[in-house]
């Protein structure tokens, strides 16, 4: 399974973030963040609380209330920031939420089919009927090792923390995004749930797909081995390296990281 695009002959740039500045409620959170992600790569974004990790995920997925004041985000050659959230999803961007939302009264399968077909429609592809869709979903359930009982319930309603996170990964498996952003998907999970989530992510790794894993802890990276690790502090990437950087952080914490990094 281990695939490293940096060993391949040609790198295809998927996401290029340049000098990104963003404000939330009038407060500047991202202060000149730059990052390039190529197809097939897994990038881990680590950093202390308040560094801007979740803001990055929210800005990339188009959440309201996040104001970009400078910089650009180019995704597959297009200006990502100009797109509505639903158009970003149709273009292949997926955000696994740190706190997945409970939606009473909306059946999980119905929701997922509506999303799946809306994305296909957005791309000018044919929609699947409920039988075709159910077949697809059953295959994905097997891969993700999720019980089909989850399908019959309302979206995330009454789900445990672990079930919610697994449901995010399951949605990702069905929607097959090109760029998956995992916002602290590991937080609040016990070791078994973490392994299941990691297994789900690993099953989806492919040369065409890139991952941005936002995490506070190194723990997840034991199970989903990243190609690159970046340290985000005070709204900027202050240090980048390979997976050994995560281990160094685990040992020494965030203190002293990024000193001498380019401004």
């Amino acid at each position, binding site marked *: 399974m281990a695939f490293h695009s940096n060993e391949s002959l040609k790198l295809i740039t998927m996401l290029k973030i340049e000098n990104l500045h963003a404000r939330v409620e009038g407060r500047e959170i991202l202060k000149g963040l730059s990052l390039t992600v190529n197809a097939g790569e897994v990038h881990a974004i680590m950093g202390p609380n308040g560094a801007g990790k979740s803001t990055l995920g929210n800005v990339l997925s188009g959440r309201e209330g996040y104001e970009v004041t400078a910089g650009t985000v180019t995704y597959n050659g297009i200006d990502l920031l100009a797109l509505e959230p639903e158009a970003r999803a149709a273009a292949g961007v997926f955000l696994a939420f740190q706190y997945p939302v409970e939606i009473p009264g909306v059946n999980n399968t119905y929701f997922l089919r509506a*999303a799946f077909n809306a994305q296909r429609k957005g791309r000018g592809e044919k929609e699947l009927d409920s039988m075709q869709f159910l077949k697809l979903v059953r295959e994905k359930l097997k891969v993700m090792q999720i019980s089909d009982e989850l399908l019959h319930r309302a979206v995330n309603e009454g789900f445990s923390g672990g079930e919610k996170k697994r449901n995010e990964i399951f949605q990702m498996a069905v929607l097959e995004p090109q760029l998956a952003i995992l916002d602290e998907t590991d937080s609040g999970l016990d070791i078994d749930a973490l392994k299941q989530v990691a297994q789900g992510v690993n099953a989806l790794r492919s040369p065409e797909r890139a991952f941005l894993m936002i995490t506070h802890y190194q723990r997840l990276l034991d199970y989903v081995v990243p190609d690159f690790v970046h340290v985000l502090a005070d709204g900027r990437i202050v240090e980048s390296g390979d997976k050994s950087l995560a281990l160094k952080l685990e040992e020494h914490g965030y203190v002293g990281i990024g000193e001498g990094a380019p401004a």
Partner: protein
Amino acid sequence: MNQSAPLPLVESLLDAQLPGSGIAWLDAARRENREAFASGGLPDTRVEAWKYTALRALAQRSFASGDSQAQTRVVDAAPLTLPGIDGPRLVFVNGVFRADLSALDSLQDGLTLEPLSLALRGDAEPLRFALSRHYRETGDAFARINAASAGDGLVLRVAAKTIVAVPVQLVFVGASAESALAWHARNVIELGEDAELTLVEQHVASGEQAHLATLVSDIELREGARLHHIILQNAAIGASLVRRSSLRLHGRAHAKVHVLELGGALVRHDLRAELVGDGAQLDTRGVFMPHGRQHIDTQLAIRHQALNTTSSSNWRGVANDRARGVFRGAIVVAPGADGSDASLSNKNLLLSPSAEIDTKPELEIYADEVKAAHGATVGQLDERSLFYLRSRGIPQAEARALLTAAFCRAVLDDLPNETLREHLSTLLIAHLPT
């Protein structure tokens, strides 16, 4: 309102000839109610029950009385049928019974079903109590004019211990006519001891019109009787519709009422229930969804008057554009109704900044060991949920519709007829803004 010159509405309604019956007590009751309407006029917004529903505009309009051509009007057949409902059917066009559109053959033993116009030609004595009622307050203006003028409607009786196997369907069609009409219908419904019935009441439109219709239903449930009453109001967008449903529940009787208010320009529904026998139980569920410039007002009034009576009410309102929704839920637990349990919830969604919903839950308790809960909220769609759906690729308008439908569907969940439930759910979604 009644001090100054007579209002065009009052004048035009009084213009109507009373339907002659030749039954002395009935003619007297009609005359008295007519006089009460003439002298009392219309309630203004100082009357608590009409606080949020001003009749000023309606009061300036005139309506032709009744429809002399109701028997022959061609009406759309489509809204007369409902998926999942296939039983006896009574159809009234502009308030007049239409045998040709109804289905009353092969009625089950123990079920009596006939139009009021026909019932009054036979032995009218069993109707005496319901039809000789006097309405005491100005707030009852429409009930008064209805009592004076209604010549048709439904008379339904279920004999003791009779379980009516199929739902009975009652359809009121507002059909377009040469001018705006006023028509009045009256239902008298009684379920005998341990009898069981499902009644589906529909208000539908055939063509555009701006009629004024009033409907008064008296529903009596004897000991142990069970009624499921489903009301689907989808009247013409220009129609005014004022309804009153009064239920009386004797011991162990159980009434379940589902209401869907979708159509009409000015709609008012007074849903009143008296739980007069020990252990009586009432469940009400409803959705009102005004849009455009619609005004939909529901006044729910429940009186617990006996031991260990239970009521649960769950209502949802969704207002869009410049529409207005009104909900008042007044529950009284009277002295002696010890051990009663009353709950009332009314949650509302405003989909537009110009829409308005006024909600007022009221609870008065005069008994002991009572369990009671009530609450009302008015809010907007949850932004977090909306973003969650959009982030998965569902376009904004579709996401809003999905969340709104889910919000409303909660009150349809305990509708046992799945085909009908799906149909009502589809109607709800069709009614949502796109």
